[in-house]
């Protein structure tokens, strides 16, 4: 994404002009825009005019509109892929729609009219935050406008007869295709059915890989599976590449990594990315850090339950006590339509960082983020053990004391 213009005052008011360039940028924009913000972008509007004789005429105009956002919708892969078969980078496919009321009138559109904008790649838009720019939003802009950011990775999670072909970027995992071929299991009296079906399965996956994985641009392509399927697939890919003398594929051979995973479902991806071979390739990419963070949390939960907390209320209590060493928080929570809720979480992140803690903001477009979402969206690893029940009791007592004081104060007045 390109930052075209930025004008933000000390008090957090102001605007930025951005130019999204790929799918991931669209995801950033989706996370930046919240309800109530003003977005100015080029729109195509159908205008109807009524002539003096009563005949109506309608035409389309391109005009700049400013909307007060009421709804945003993001879809990671709107159009199905254009296949060029060369394993090269594609046009962006994600789409982002923004609906809202027009807040600046022009000659075509009245004030208060509704419009739905389609934000497009390589087209500028201006975003004004009415509630003010907070540190999380600014951080995201900085992150997303950095040049040459992030690792891009292809991944195939497979088992006998099932495969999911995924593309991972810094903030997004897109499952480009799920393949399911029914493979008969072994049976007394011949395994030809199994072998035929496996051959069919492998060739289906191979074709999909050629179509969907731009291996020339990727840092690495991971094949993950339980058992021997990964070896079978890997061998098949390069055997086919040899047969068809697919030079680009053959020369990318060093990028392909076989990793063991315990399941053939997509959630095996988290595990696969933790494997040392892959981690080395990624070198501190964001999604790798997220996976490690989540893993740490689970390990802490196993070794010292009192130092691993989750759930918004509980984590808030831990933050109040300055006990949080690592905060894991999903970007889902920042997308809340209620600014108060968002501010609450922003304050939490700032509090943790100010005390020297680490705050990891998980992207919910990644498998690890989704797992965090399922786990209420927020979790924390504490620096020292705290018993949740003791803390809750303290809180209760504190509240009672405050209540008493209040009541006591009231009595004195009387």
């Amino acid at each position, binding site marked *: 994404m390109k930052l075209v213009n930025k004008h933000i005052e000390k008090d957090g008011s102001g605007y930025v002009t951005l130019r999204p360039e790929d799918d991931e940028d669209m995801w950033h924009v989706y996370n930046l825009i919240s309800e109530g913000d003003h977005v100015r972008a080029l729109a195509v509007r159908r205008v109807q005019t009524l002539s003096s004789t009563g005949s109506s005429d309608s035409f389309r105009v391109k005009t700049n509109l400013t909307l007060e956002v009421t709804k945003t919708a993001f879809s990671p892969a709107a159009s199905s892929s254009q296949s060029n078969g060369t394993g090269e980078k594609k046009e962006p496919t994600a789409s982002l729609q923004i609906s809202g009321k027009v807040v600046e009138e022009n000659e075509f559109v009245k004030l208060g009219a509704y419009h739905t904008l389609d934000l497009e790649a390589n087209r500028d838009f201006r975003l004004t935050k009415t509630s003010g720019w907070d540190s999380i939003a600014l951080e995201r802009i900085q992150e997303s406008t950095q040049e040459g950011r992030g690792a891009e990775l292809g991944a195939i999670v497979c088992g006998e007869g099932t495969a999911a072909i995924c593309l991972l970027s810094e903030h997004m995992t897109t499952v480009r295709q799920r393949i399911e071929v029914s493979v008969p299991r072994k049976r007394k009296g011949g395994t030809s059915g199994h072998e035929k079906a496996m051959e069919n399965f492998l060739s289906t996956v191979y074709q999909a890989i050629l179509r969907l994985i731009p291996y020339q641009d990727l840092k690495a392509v991971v094949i993950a599976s339980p058992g021997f399927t990964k070896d079978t697939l890997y061998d098949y890919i390069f055997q086919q590449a040899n047969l068809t003398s697919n030079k680009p594929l053959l020369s990318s051979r060093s990028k392909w990594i076989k990793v063991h995973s315990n399941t053939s479902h997509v959630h095996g991806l988290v595990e696969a990315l933790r494997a040392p071979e892959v981690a080395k390739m990624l070198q501190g990419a964001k999604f790798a850090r997220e996976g490690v963070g989540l893993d740490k949390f689970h390990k802490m939960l196993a070794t010292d339950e009192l130092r691993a907390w989750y759930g918004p209320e509980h984590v808030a209590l831990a933050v109040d006590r300055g006990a949080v060493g690592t905060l894991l928080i999903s970007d889902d929570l920042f997308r809340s339509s209620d600014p108060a809720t968002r501010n609450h979480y922003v304050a939490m992140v700032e509090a943790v960082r100010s005390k020297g803690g680490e705050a990891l903001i998980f992207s919910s477009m990644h498998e690890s983020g989704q797992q965090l*979402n399922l786990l209420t969206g927020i979790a924390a690893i504490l620096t020292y053990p705290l018993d949740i029940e003791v803390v809750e009791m303290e809180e209760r007592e504190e509240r009672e004391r405050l209540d008493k004081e209040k009541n006591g104060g009231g009595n004195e007045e009387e």
Partner: protein
Amino acid sequence: MLTNNQFSAAKAAKAASITQKSASLPGKPRTQTGTTPKSKLQPKTQPNSPVNSTSKAGSSGSNTPTNKGSGSKSPLTVAQQDLAGLHLDQEVDLEAEKEKYKERAALSMKTEELIAKVRKEEEESGKKNISLIVVGHVDAGKSTLMGRLLYDIGELSEKEKTANERGSKKIGKGSFAFAWGLDALGDERDRGVTIDIATTHFTTPHRNYTLLDAPGHRDFIPAMISGAAQADVALMVVDGSPGEFEAGFERGGQTREHAWLVRSLGVKEIIVGINKMDLVSWSQDRYEEIVEALKPFLLSAGFASAKTTFMPLAAMEGINILENDVEELKEWYNGPTLISALDKVEVPPRPYESPLRIPVSNVFKGQTAIASGVAVSGRLCSGVVQVGDRLRAVPGDEVATVRTIEVDEDSSPYAVSGQNVTLYLSGIDSINLSIGTILCPTSLPVPLVSKFTTQILVFDLQSPIIIGTSVELFHHSVNLPATVSRLVNVLEKGQVTKKNPRVLQKGMTATIEITLRSTSNNNARIPIETSQQNKEMGRVLIRRNGETIAAGEYYLYLRSSIR
């Protein structure tokens, strides 16, 4: 059987009677299909009986009675016609209900006769059907032991054996010759590891055994679970050679996990074969040492000591399988041989009377002349099935007809619960069937759920279960990604000790809610029944990161009782 001729005659008669009454009323297709089993029972009265066909026509048309009474004299008002179109006419509904009831009664009478017949035959021959799963740590010699057993019994021919011996020697894996009798896949033979369940059968004097040879490697536990769900008794093979038993028994070895798995999938009896005893020159001390280590563990895993048998074995040499003919062993061991132990295993009672349930474990295309077309195999959890039965494949709306039933590679007119069968189906496309489909009667399908409460026992695990834990749910042969969406309560001896716990630790019994993870384009649902309804259909296993973390049973709770 009703011949084609008779059937079409019956159809024609019915069609004729309908056209006579009122040409505009379409016959309900369901009534037609419903009569098929009935006509089979009473072929004499069915085709031409006038009483029968009148009542048929009456029920197939929705508003005939009203028409009969007043139709010719005063035409129906518009409102009346509309109502008639809504099938609200009660009189007809009652008629239809009666018809349905009759059909079902006829069906169940037929099955009752069959059940009585099966019971009688079982008593006469004294042979009972039973399924055996062979489990144990990788390379304990499960496949080799079974290959040897089949060869000794005569199920594996001399010719096959020599072919396997030659083949395995060729690639330098001569010791796998017996295992090749079961490891048929190319990958399995190349790598010397069982990957998928091998199903075969053998007989002992008093039992018909279905043998399921499970893979021991941890990556293939899904296949092993699929097999264990079909088994009644387990044969656990442990490696007796120095160091190997310990490797398989320690944390991370498969011995423990397998024992837990088979027990929680309903296996009550276990035979432990301590294999490769020839490598320690039949040392009694070694044998005792292993037995002492395993006994308390198996007891804690839930196997009663009366249901646990230990025996020394040497699979490669075939010692103590059919008979014990080694002097060193005879000196201190006079217990049963493998075959005699297997012959005495108790057969659990079979739920013949319950509605039919067949969880499909394999779908393939039959290739021989008599057995062609879509074929499925699986084990009957409950009920009975006969050739000609119409079965519903759940999930899905498809109905198939059973064309041929194969039990132990022989065709059979029927199969009963507890048997592993291959069914050849007609009237269904194979895309509507997959591993995990449940075949059931059209009248009593299995419900589909996407979220359910289950009572679980938490096993040894690395990190505790919390809300949102991503798991894989295993139910018979299918495994699906799922999430623990709620921790409802913790139980101790059936009493709730804590509500809404934060975490579940090792050894806890708890009630949790599981939600299947749906992908963007499909809403995942699983056919499952509560344990109250059908024990075998309610069992689930929960795994995470390649370890089994809990076993559970699906219970239906009233909303109020879990809040």
